[in-house]
């Protein structure tokens, strides 16, 4: 019974991080109607940044957010501004910007291969003081780094939600997602909104990378694991829905830890894909029927 509870809690905690990755993806999709295939690669970049910050200067990943967050935002902002926007402009009137999909797929492969050339194919971990720390609640054991990561996720999700609903910039982002032409007529600079939205999406995934580092490893293609999970999560939760992304993340985290605990770890991927494919066939609009926020 305690193993069951521990497994469930661990699954939920890990699911929070998956949800965080998916949240950035769903934001970018909601506003630009583009799936950012390079999403996992940005996560990988954030993890390497966190790793080297810690190894070279000893800055804790959570403290390091002061540095990683703005850097990742800028990375996303300029990626959109320099790389994606010119391609996007050509397809402005197209409902499904396929070229942009291809561009981000190219970016994905490029970044992963570049990291491989730069950092080598080794798995890297960091040793924070709280690395192996656990919390005992009776017989239930909770890993502290995972708990911190989950709490960060929840706080960030709430902040982000309030930002979208209450602030002027948040409203402008939502308006652009709902109808870019109408938004432009209302005087919104939609080019800037795209840059900012992409930047925020990448900044969110940057946070995910930072909070992952204390209990996970980094290597050049670590992004693929999270990338594919994030794709699945956004479809589960409904493309463009933020609560859907978090809930979908928790579901995937739960499935993963339960299967690993009670069936066998090598099958987790298979089961997750099976769920994904059945959702795609049966309820492509998402499991919960959340309306997209934009």
């Amino acid at each position, binding site marked *: 019974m305690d193993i069951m509870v521990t497994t469930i809690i661990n699954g939920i905690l890990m699911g929070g991080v998956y949800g965080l990755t998916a949240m950035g993806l769903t934001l970018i999709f909601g506003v630009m109607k583009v799936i950012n295939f390079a999403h996992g690669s940005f996560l990988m970049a954030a993890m390497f940044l966190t790793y080297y910050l810690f190894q070279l200067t000893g800055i804790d990943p959570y403290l390091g957010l002061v540095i990683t967050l703005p850097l990742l935002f800028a990375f996303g902002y300029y990626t959109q501004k320099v790389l994606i926007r010119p391609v996007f402009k050509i397809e402005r009137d197209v409902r499904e910007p396929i070229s942009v999909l291809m561009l981000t797929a190219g970016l994905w492969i490029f970044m992963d291969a570049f990291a491989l050339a730069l950092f080598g194919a080794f798995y890297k971990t960091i040793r924070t003081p709280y690395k192996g720390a656990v919390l005992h609640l009776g017989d239930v054991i909770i890993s502290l780094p995972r708990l911190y990561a989950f709490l960060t996720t929840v706080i960030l999700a709430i902040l982000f939600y309030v930002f979208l609903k209450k602030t002027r910039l948040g409203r402008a982002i939502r308006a652009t997602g709902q109808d870019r032409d109408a938004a432009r007529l209302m005087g919104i600079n939609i080019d800037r909104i795209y840059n900012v939205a992409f930047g925020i999406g990448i900044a969110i995934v940057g946070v995910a990378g930072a909070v992952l580092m204390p209990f996970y490893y980094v290597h050049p293609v670590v992004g693929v694991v999270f990338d594919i999970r994030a794709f699945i999560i956004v479809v589960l939760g409904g493309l463009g829905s933020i609560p859907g992304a978090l809930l979908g993340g928790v579901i995937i985290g739960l499935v993963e830890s339960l299967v690993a605990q009670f069936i066998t770890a090598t099958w987790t991927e*298979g089961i997750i894909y099976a769920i994904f494919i059945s959702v795609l066939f049966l309820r492509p609009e998402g499991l919960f029927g959340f309306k997209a926020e934009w």
Partner: protein
Amino acid sequence: MEKERTHAKTLKIGRITWIALIGVLILLVAPFFIQSPAFFQLMILILWYAYLTTSWNLVGGFAGVLPLGHATFAGIGAYTSSVLFIHYGLTPWVGMFAGALLAAIVGVIIGAPTFRLRGAYFALATIAICESLRVVLENMQKFLGFDINGARGILLPLKGHSPLDYQFLDKRYFYYIILVMLAIIFYITYRIARSKLGYYLVAGGEEKEAAEALGINVAKCKLIAMAISTFFTALGGTFYMQLVHYIYPRGIVSLDLSFEIAFIAIIGGRGTLLGPIVGAVLLVPAAELTRTYLGGSYEGVHLMLYGAVLMAVMLFKPRGIMEPLEALYRWVLRKFSLQPVIQTDRSV
């Protein structure tokens, strides 16, 4: 606007036939002049990639969707024909069609629900199918009673030089086989591009709603394209198996191969006849060189090249390398005044 519409698909019939005939002729006689095995290996690889990307192009280029998991079908082809050969001694010449049929069925099953949705769903579904097939193959020792040996993969029983078993010691046989296969898929693409189906596909890919309003069953057309494309991709998978005699899940059903196929076609020029071939001729040798010199611990670094070139192409020549090449071709024609006075393909 007019410039954008000058698509390679509007290449005149006469011209493209000439290019194809000359190309085939050169390739046919090449083995009589070149003996180096390394060169043959490279040529076979180029032709193999050209074949796979041309198959991909039927759905990825003409149908206006983005399949990112075509290695799935190559894997299905390779595994099916080999398993049938090992268990029943069925020659891969026949077995490959069983694999191809299976691949076509899987392709239609993936396409049926996703073609109705946004393009992104289809791209995601193909990635997920590719990864899940790999996981299944890696984790199963037996599949429906056939030994597939999980992650260790399967080895083809060697028969020496045995044409009936699709096994040859001399690489030249493989060279001619893949050349013929490429010619066949090229011809099929050429015919489809000029058929009603081809125009329906392009119309459905560019303006789905408009095409549907005109009474075109866009989803059905895309499914037909998907079936043909996956069928031929699977044949390519069997070819690869016969060439190297050994496959393991990660070696063929991988996202790396899927991306290579898609990227070569996109870089060359998706939706054009010659684009995939031009892409393969330009990229495969470069990738092979990187692989040779950076191989070992840096497996996969050659993909950096693909990624970078793909981004550059998307930024500067979204229609692919074929676009500037065609411009160059026109310029040469004009320069040496071989062009007829009236430019027929301008009037479109």
